[in-house]
């Protein structure tokens, strides 16, 4: 049972998160910051998520091609 749960979790981790969990972490943090800026500081931070996505992708690509991932 535990083994089945582990492989189920591993499948979904690989399915959504994939090769580099840093990308997922950056996207989640960016969305959290966007919500904070929008609701608490009343800043319409529409630019934050795209910038974070591009930065996460660049960093992940750099890590992948330099052998650091």
């Amino acid at each position, binding site marked *: 049972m535990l083994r089945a749960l582990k492989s189920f979790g591993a499948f979904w981790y690989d*399915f*959504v*998160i*994939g*090769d*580099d969990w840093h*990308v*997922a972490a950056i*996207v*989640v943090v960016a*969305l*959290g910051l*966007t*919500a904070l800026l*929008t*609701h608490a500081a009343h800043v*319409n*931070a*529409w630019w*934050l*998520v*795209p910038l974070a*996505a*591009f930065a*996460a*992708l*660049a960093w*992940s*690509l*750099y890590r*992948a*091609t*330099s*052998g650091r*991932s």
Partner: protein
Amino acid sequence: MTALPLILTVFVACAVEAIEALTIVLAAGLTRQWRSTFQGMAAALVVLAAVVGVLGPTITLLPLGTLRLVVGALLAIFGLQWLRKAILRASGHKALHDEASAYLREVAAAKAAPEVRKGRVSDWYAFTLSFKGVLLEGLEVVFIVITFGDNQRDLGAAVIGAAIAVVVVTVTGIAVRAPLAKVPENALKFAVGIMLTSFGTFWGAEGAGVTWPGGDAALLVIVPVVAVVSLAYVFWILRYRPPASLGQQAPTPEGVTN
């Protein structure tokens, strides 16, 4: 957003997955036996239909803001992973996905496996190979259909896009009785990565509370910007570490096909 862009996006994304499933089904059917292969395929389709039937309407019950935040985050993460692989492939840092060689690998494994009967299934290997292939690729189709369909409150249009993709790929596969190696699958995956990332970014930020300049029309800017930045990254990586030969497997940390 009207139904047409939704149908087209889901169609392309699902066609890519259907091509990969077809390769596995053909390897099982042509090498082993069709009866067990079809049984495995049918069992997987029943499971997938149950997942759509349960998850589709359930997710719709979430408030739109929460739905867009959660689904947007998932789509952006999922899309960035596709895009990452596509950029690494396009720049030669990762082997190109090749249906012909994937087919040959599956055929070799299928020929080596012994024939075992279990209950009504006369060839358990063909059944499980077909079941796993259709289920795993199908789950990606289900994920795309549910996220796009529910977010646009138009699950029907998303299902239509996916169904057309599956029918087109299946009919073509039956006609040629070979893996669809001539389909520009790597280019399609690049395009799908761009679409998933764009929609995920748009919906995720909207779910977090922002108002996009121009409303839904912002997508008409986001998609080309994501495409241009992604292509720029391809050229950046090419300059950063030129591969030995484009399109060939390069001796890099990510030279494994998946």
